[in-house]
């Protein structure tokens, strides 16, 4: 039978505040075990939590950036469960009055994935199981999180992936989290159920906990979908349970079944007062939000004429987009700037972390000045490209590399002379080309470019060379 996937995600995002949610301990990642702790975050009796203003602010920004309503009144609740990673035996979270609700994220296929709610809560400590005992480090305990809960609107593994990628991109844009999956600052619980194609009822779902990489999330979902499909095909039932994904064996395993489902006995946190957010504050935050990736993408494509694939690459990282925008100021064709960034600069910032930081020697103003030389016809594309490489090496402006006499290209007579010389000096290449090796033309072109010190127009030169070589037959 053909099945349709029905999936919803709970995404935990660690906020990049300086301090923990209820105390002044640092949130720095790493650090010796149990050195970022105080009586509040190790849950000693008699201590009082005090809410970090920044956590509320960041959560409001996250909500606004994902089209949520912001609650004017919300509160904190205790979620009770006994486990060593939680020193108080409860987590301070939000239950029935989350800070944000009813938002959505739009995917590239136009489908909207609803966001049920976003609430704030504290992270738990870290457990290391060794020699049958459990070692506990509370450095992470009390680090602020937002939990973003989606509606079960996701219909494919690709959609799940894009949804998380978009969340990651948005949270980074607004600067509330670095969303590094490998460091655990973004992690997902994935709910999965199947139903026959055409059916409108939900099947029994399972939940895979704590996915902290895109690769594993995809693999775990693939495994779980085929496992459930097999069960259903055999006429068996899917059991509602919580699963963990075992990377080494590429399979899921039950953590607990429905009968041991947690009973969290939520109740209001009596140590913390109500959170009130005024409309004035919401409006102020709305005005402060940067242009988000979707809006940028649409603007690049529709107003600047950037091809969609390129626009996608430019908006993915906020600093890249900002660089592109600065370098495009007053430029006739922003596509040239886009090509410089994607074709040449990206080669120097290969991985995600480097693109995120986009720390390159060349200022966007220098790139703009270089492209303006092309606009005014003073240099040709090939000289622009070779100069850009030098500028990237040294971080200096174009004027340091292009002499005045190199500007303006070469006139038709000079170009003709250069091509004649190229043909005369490379008889083998000419023979190869005439013999059918089209690539041989490259060495002739190289000769022309070199001898014109990069000033010749490569496209014109190539055209002329083909003409002349064929005429010499």
């Amino acid at each position: 039978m053909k099945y349709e996937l029905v999936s919803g995600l709970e995404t935990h995002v660690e906020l990049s505040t300086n301090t923990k949610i209820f105390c002044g301990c640092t949130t720095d990642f790493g650090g010796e075990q149990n050195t970022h702790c105080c009586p509040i975050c190790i849950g000693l009796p008699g201590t009082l939590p005090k809410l970090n203003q920044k956590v509320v602010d960041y959560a409001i920004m996250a909500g606004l950036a994902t089209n949520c309503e912001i609650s004017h009144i919300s509160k904190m609740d205790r979620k009770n469960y006994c486990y060593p990673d939680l020193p108080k035996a409860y987590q301070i979270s939000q239950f029935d009055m989350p800070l944000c609700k009813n938002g959505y994220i739009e995917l590239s296929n136009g489908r909207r994935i609803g966001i049920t709610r976003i609430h704030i809560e504290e992270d738990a400590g870290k457990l290391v199981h060794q020699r049958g005992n459990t070692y506990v480090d509370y450095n992470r305990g009390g680090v602020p999180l937002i939990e973003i809960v989606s509606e079960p609107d996701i219909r494919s593994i690709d959609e799940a992936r894009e949804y998380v990628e978009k969340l990651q991109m948005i949270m980074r844009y607004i600067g509330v989290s670095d969303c590094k999956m490998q460091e655990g600052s973004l992690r997902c619980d994935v709910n999965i159920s199947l139903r026959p194609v055409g059916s409108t009822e939900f099947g029994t779902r399972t939940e895979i906990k704590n996915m902290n990489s895109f690769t594993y999330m995809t693999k775990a979902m693939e495994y779980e979908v085929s496992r459930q499909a097999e069960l259903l095909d055999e006429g068996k039932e899917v059991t509602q349970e919580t699963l963990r994904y075992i990377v080494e064996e590429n399979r899921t395993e039950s953590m607990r079944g429905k009968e041991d489902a947690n009973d969290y006995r939520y109740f209001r946190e009596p140590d913390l007062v109500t959170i009130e957010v005024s409309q004035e504050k919401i409006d102020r935050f709305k005005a402060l939000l940067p242009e988000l990736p979707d809006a940028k993408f649409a603007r690049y494509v529709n107003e600047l004429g950037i091809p969609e694939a390129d626009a996608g690459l430019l908006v993915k990282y906020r600093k890249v987009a900002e660089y592109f925008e600065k370098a495009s100021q007053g430029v006739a064709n922003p596509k040239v700037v886009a090509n410089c960034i994607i074709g040449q600069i990206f080669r120097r910032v290969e991985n995600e972390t480097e693109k995120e930081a986009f720390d390159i020697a060349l200022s966007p103003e220098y790139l703009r000045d270089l492209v303006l030389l092309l606009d005014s016809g003073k240099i040709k594309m090939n000289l622009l490209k070779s100069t850009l490489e030098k500028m990237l090496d040294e971080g200096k402006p174009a004027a340091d590399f292009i002499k005045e006499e190199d500007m303006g290209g070469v006139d038709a007579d000079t170009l003709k002379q250069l091509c004649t010389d190229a043909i005369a000096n490379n008889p083998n290449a000419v023979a190869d080309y005439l013999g059918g090796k089209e690539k041989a033309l490259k060495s002739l072109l190289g000769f022309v470019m070199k001898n014109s010190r990069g000033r010749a127009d490569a496209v014109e030169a190539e055209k002329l060379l083909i003409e002349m070589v064929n005429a010499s037959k």
Partner: protein
Amino acid sequence: MVTREDVLQMARLSKLYIKEEELDALTKDMDKIIAFAETISAAQCEQTNFDNINNLSNVLREDVVVPSYDREEILKNAESQDEGYFLVKRRS
């Protein structure tokens, strides 16, 4: 009405071990406690919305780091510790 099953469930969630012979007495006690707390439901109250009875809101702190405690202090009251970690020993 609190049942024996309710009490067992509570004990399980609280990681408490209860002997069979204690169960009936505990069930009765629990029932009394709940009944006592139920009194409050009888109170007449105009305000049915969210209760913000203390009229306090937004008691917040600035996001400024203060030094954490020395690890020695943090681990001082731990029943068991090893290599700077709290140690939770497996129960045999």
